[in-house]
């Protein structure tokens, strides 16, 4: 058990949770729906699973699934009005939903209201977090070239053309929202059972912005992007600890710099393909 230090353990767990959160945004984003409600879905998952384990004594695994399912229902509900709008409008609407969920938990006395919800059992550890992350990775790996994945990308590139081709837009887009919300709910469950105390402030729209930053920094075209982005953002402030005082400033500046140099994120399909590296190496050799 004690092979790694508690510090590394914490970093790895937060990295994993953030990676799951990033994956939750990747699903709706793969059909062009940029959502800023992931923090809210995470809140729903966190609170519901915590209530299940603490007040009803449900096993952790089932509670996680329960939290994810509740978040999923709300994801579907948000998915329907989201069908009609896109781009900036969708961003703002989901941001609005996120804040409504936050204010709801701020006032909901059953889960502690302003005082927060404490006394949650510490259940999250590396051994139950990483298998799920791995499953998600396998899912996205299979998803990328599956029928569903291609349909999503078609919608992302040209919604009208995709619809003319007979793709069921409503079903696919609401599926993406609901599925994304389910994954965000999982992240919330893990988070609640790691920090043991949650309050509505943990899930404001800054959390959703974080999720967006993970995906867009890492690259939104391929599933390695969110993974890389989440780990980078989690570890960067720690790496910059050398510059202790200014680590967040450096992080902000590197975000700006990244957008100047690679506006579509670090990774894209080109960089992740074997052919691209082969050609790069060949060109180097030729010189």
């Amino acid at each position, binding site marked *: 058990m004690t092979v790694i230090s508690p510090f590394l353990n914490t970093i790895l767990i937060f990295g994993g949770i953030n990676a799951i959160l990033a994956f939750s945004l990747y699903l709706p984003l793969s059909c062009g729906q*940029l959502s800023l409600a992931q923090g809210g879905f995470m809140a729903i998952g966190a609170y519901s699973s915590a209530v299940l384990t603490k007040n009803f004594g449900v096993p952790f695994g089932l509670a996680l699934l329960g939290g994810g399912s509740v978040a999923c229902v709300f994801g579907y509900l948000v998915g329907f009005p989201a069908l009609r709008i896109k781009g900036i409008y969708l961003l*703002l609407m989901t941001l*609005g939903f996120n804040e409504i969920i936050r204010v*709801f938990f701020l006032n909901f006395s059953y889960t502690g209201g302003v005082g927060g919800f404490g006394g949650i059992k510490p259940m999250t550890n590396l051994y139950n977090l990483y298998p799920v992350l791995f499953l998600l990775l396998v899912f996205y790996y299979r998803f990328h070239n599956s029928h569903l994945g291609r349909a999503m990308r078609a919608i992302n590139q040209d919604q009208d053309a995709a619809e003319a081709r007979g793709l069921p837009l409503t079903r696919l887009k609401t599926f993406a929202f609901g599925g994304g919300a389910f994954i965000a709910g999982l992240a919330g469950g893990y988070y609640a059972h790691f920090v043991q105390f949650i309050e509505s402030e943990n899930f*404001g*729209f800054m959390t959703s912005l974080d999720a967006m930053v993970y995906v867009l920094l890492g690259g939104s075209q391929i599933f390695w992007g969110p993974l890389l982005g989440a780990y980078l953002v989690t570890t960067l402030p720690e790496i910059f600890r050398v510059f202790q005082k200014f680590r967040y400033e450096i992080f902000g500046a590197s975000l*700006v710099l990244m957008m100047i140099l690679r506006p579509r994120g670090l990774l894209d399909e080109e960089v992740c393909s074997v052919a691209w590296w082969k050609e790069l190496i060949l060109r180097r050799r030729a010189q």
Partner: protein
Amino acid sequence: MFLQQLINGIMLGSTYSLVAIGYTLIFGVLNLLHFAHGEVFMLGAFFALQLSLGLKWGLAASMLGALIGTALVGFLIERVAIRPIKREYFIAPLVATIGVTIILQEVATKLFGSAPVGFPQTVGIENFQLGPIGINTLQIVILSISLTLMILMHLFVSKTKMGRAMRATAENATTARLLGVKVNGIIIQTFMIASALAGVAGVLVGMAYNTISPYMGAHMAGKGFAIMLLGGLGNIRGAMLGGIILGVAETFCVGYLASSYRDAFAYGVMVLILILKPSGLFGSLIHED
């Protein structure tokens, strides 16, 4: 009671309007959600605080100082984080403004501390009784400053040559450039004006509530977005009216319903507007996407 709440609401709303005008101006010319605008608002309050406490400047002088300071901040943001970024992907500049938000908030907490601080009483408060309504000098000052700025802004945009160039850029940047408008200059000018307005709004909110904190920007950012949508994206008059509507609605919510739901109000409005009438109450400049 009703009239009293109305006056309080208009006062609160007029400061919202100043912030929302900035959002809508920037959205108009750049099609950009400027997340760091809330932080500029916060910086305005702190600039005025430093000037009036540290240098013992009067109200007018420190407000002018805050205005100039935030205009410079706006200039820097545009130069460093907006202009170098290619416009092809609409999310990229947005993420860059998130980076700027992080930097500004951290710098502010380092310089001014993370705890809320008291804002100096700069106006001698005198209460007046107009029939059933009580109003004090502070409210009159806040209301008159923000209304004056809004009228000036309206005149500037609708009557001057620069304002016309700004509207042309908002409508179609390519055509405006073809017709000889210096679009880059207009963008930077828009940023400076928007930031200056937000700075003044920060000072006014500081005066109204007597406390300011480095985290006051984030909440204002959310409200600014809601008002911008309520009034219609890119619609300046819409932002002015939308701000006042939201301010009044929030005050009534606190007065007659529950104060803790106050913040949900703005976001509820935002979601409803997007579902029912995405172009806003007063029409939007931007037609698609």
